[in-house]
């Protein structure tokens, strides 16, 4: 019996239990619901939950523990049969417990509360899963490859025959360079757009432009990647890089940086918009009353007051840029070089994670496992930036509340 049909059977048992529990409660109360402690439906729900929840939990635990158990159809069938036995047993116990005095509502609410808590723990489980999978495989990697060479190596030349050099510095350089260019585009454009929208724009303009900028935020990164690869890359190469003799490659730091900057504009502008709007109107009124113009008010009162929040928004944008994958995979190239020329192809941490982990992997070679160490580095960098940014933003919000 496949797990799918086991689940269907358990749910059918639960539905049956609902009917049985409700009927039994009603018949014990001689058809008068006022003799029951709870409303009749709760007696039904009690039986249904008793039948379904333990059995389904068993199936989930079994699925999680699958790799530790002996494989094969026998273990799967055993788990399915065990789950159904538990469902039937739960059903029987709950039906027997059904009496008019039984506090069915309280029992049901306790169980639902437990389920709610269980669901909220999944967020923690996800983080734990991420950290465990990154740390374990990274430790595995550092047993095969010295960590000093990884963190301080300036050469990235993986060879699937052994003797590869896996230094993270060229990747880190490419990542930071591209993110820097992206922020150079996104921060001024996003910030000025946000200022204009919150301080100058009429409601009509605002209602037209704000959705247009938000559309940019809803476009998947693969679309930006294709745009970089097919349009922006060749354009920069033919009109700027080649005439100036700076390079011959369509994929370059500039291509990826410009397109990524475009992607980050709505991110910066919507965050800054919120922050600027949170500056109390009294501060603006005070400045205007002293005779300063609108722009002087913004530059000398609103922006300084909003600065911590804006810095937080920029840090969040930076963490986005560092973790972005598709634009750099398609726009930045695959050459691991450290160079200052923005029209040269460079590569990033995320590009190398993708290239080391797609295709056939051998999970005992350092060339594959290095991807987990790269992932761990990326995770730590972005986590640090996020926590710092959220701390700043939260602190700033408290200031004006």
């Amino acid at each position, binding site marked *: 019996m496949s797990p799918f049909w086991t689940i269907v059977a358990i749910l059918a048992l639960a539905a049956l239990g609902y009917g049985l529990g409700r009927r039994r409660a009603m018949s014990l109360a001689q058809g008068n619901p006022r003799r029951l402690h709870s409303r009749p439906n709760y007696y039904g729900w009690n039986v249904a939950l008793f039948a379904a929840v333990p059995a389904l939990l068993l199936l989930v635990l079994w699925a999680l523990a699958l790799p530790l158990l002996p494989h094969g159809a026998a273990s799967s069938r055993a788990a399915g049969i065990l789950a159904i036995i538990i469902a039937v047993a739960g059903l029987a116990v709950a039906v027997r417990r059904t009496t008019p005095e039984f506090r069915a509502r309280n029992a049901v609410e306790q169980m639902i509360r437990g389920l709610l808590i269980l669901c909220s723990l999944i967020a923690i489980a996800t*983080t734990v899963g991420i950290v465990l999978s990154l740390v374990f495989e990274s430790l595995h990697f550092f047993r095969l490859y010295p960590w000093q060479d990884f963190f301080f190596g300036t050469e990235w030349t993986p060879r699937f025959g052994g003797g590869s050099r896996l230094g993270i510095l060229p990747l880190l350089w490419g990542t930071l360079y591209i993110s820097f260019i992206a922020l150079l585009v996104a921060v001024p454009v996003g910030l000025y757009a946000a200022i204009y929208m919150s301080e100058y724009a009429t409601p009509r303009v605002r209602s037209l432009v704000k959705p247009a900028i938000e559309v940019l935020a809803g476009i998947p990164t693969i679309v930006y990647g294709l745009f970089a690869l097919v349009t922006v890359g060749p354009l920069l190469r033919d009109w700027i890089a080649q005439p100036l003799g700076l390079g011959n490659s369509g994929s370059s730091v500039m291509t990826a940086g410009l397109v990524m900057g475009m992607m980050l504009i709505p991110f910066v502008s919507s965050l800054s918009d919120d922050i600027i709007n949170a500056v109390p109107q009294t501060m603006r009124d005070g400045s205007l009353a002293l005779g300063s113009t*609108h722009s002087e008010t913004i530059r000398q009162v609103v922006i300084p007051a909003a600065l911590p929040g804006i810095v937080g928004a920029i840090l969040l944008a930076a963490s986005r840029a560092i973790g972005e994958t598709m634009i750099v995979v398609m726009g930045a190239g695959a050459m691991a070089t450290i160079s200052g020329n923005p029209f040269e192809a460079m590569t990033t941490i995320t590009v190398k994670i993708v290239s080391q982990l797609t295709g056939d992997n051998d999970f005992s070679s350092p060339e594959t496992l290095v991807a987990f160490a790269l992932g761990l580095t990326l995770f730590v960098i972005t986590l640090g930036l996020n926590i710092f940014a959220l701390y700043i933003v939260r602190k700033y919000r408290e200031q004006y509340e």
Partner: protein
Amino acid sequence: MSDVAPTPSRPTPARSLLVEDARTRRRNAAERRFRAYGVIAIAIAVAGLAFLLFTIFRDGSSAFVQTYVKIPVAIEASVVDPEGNGDPAEMQKILTMSYGRLLENALARHIARNDIQIEGLEDADLSTFFSSQARADLRRAVLADPSLVGTVVEHPVMTSSRVDGMFKGRVSRASAAIDAKTSAAQYDLAMALGARDDVRTTFNWNFIISTDSSDNRPEAAGLGVAIIGSFYMMLIVLVLAVPIGVATSIYLEEFAPQNRLTDVIEVNISNLAAVPSIVFGILGLAAFINFMGLPRSAPIVGGLVLTLMTLPTIIISTRAALKAVPPSIREAALGVGASRMQMVFHHVLPLAMPGILTGTILGLAQALGETAPLMLIGMVAFVTTYPAAPPEGFFDPASALPVQVFNWTQRADPAFFERASGAIIVLLAFLLAMNLLAIYLRRKFERRW
């Protein structure tokens, strides 16, 4: 009016308020400049968006049409049924290559009969004129209906990607001349047939429904498997992420006591929302494929990874929707004797439903466009068979729309770029539909308290 107060030591000459002095002029100019920067910034953002959409539609819209040439094709018995006995088993042995010869002969005869004069036309120009998919289709048609042998059929025949590109303006005579896979003579032939009205251009259903195809026939590649794969994953995300996300939000918003555990969960969720998507791909690879032993490239793994990614989005929007329900509703429910659980499930949750729905749809739209984590769990694989119906189909190899786009951009043949842009249009159409639905729901059920 906006000048400094005059000091006794430096008396200001009497002047009209209507005449700007140099300082006021400078300050007003600065004001105008500042405003202009804002307008320019918005113009840059909107122009970037317009340029992006323009190039995608310019490159991709031609993927939705396909050029066919309508010529009479004689199914010669000497080629497809050399024994002459119509035995299907014998005919199975004739490979697609031979059917290619049929098409080649038909084209040559058509040229001769209609007296089309092309300079420098070689045999290779004829054999590469039609798609290799056309031979396979013809073979399938003949095997399905052996009575076609010996007759002349007049089906539209699918042209190869280069010839198709000539009619769409992608391939010019000059570029055809330097391309090893086509020639100027082939271009002239195509134009001659076009002038004779032998060319049919129809809507390309194959692009939407058929499977991916190998490197040398981009004209036959379709999105079928990718659309099914994406659909399966959205189904899994919907079934898992929505109940879990809503349950988490209800707990955190309505029941959770202020304690350590609650804080840890909250910090966790806000951090998960900002973790780079590729890290979720690594988690999927390490936990679901390597540890739990689920199959690579399967929608179930992709669905689980996307579920974990979408959860924070759904939780954040659901909590906002729950927060927006005014306390008076809760107090009224508690006041007439409802338990807290009844208050939430009978009153707060139904009122928050439109907001939850909107957030869910936007979360799904985000998941639909996600590429990077799916690449790590093997969805870049080349899949040419449709996955089975669920639940078994969840474990079959499949592709996904955004990953298919990436896959096509990695192919050598430039015709695949047209397909990639076309696939983006399909993806954007789905996203647009989801967003419009979300906006509609918000407008329809929006409530001001």
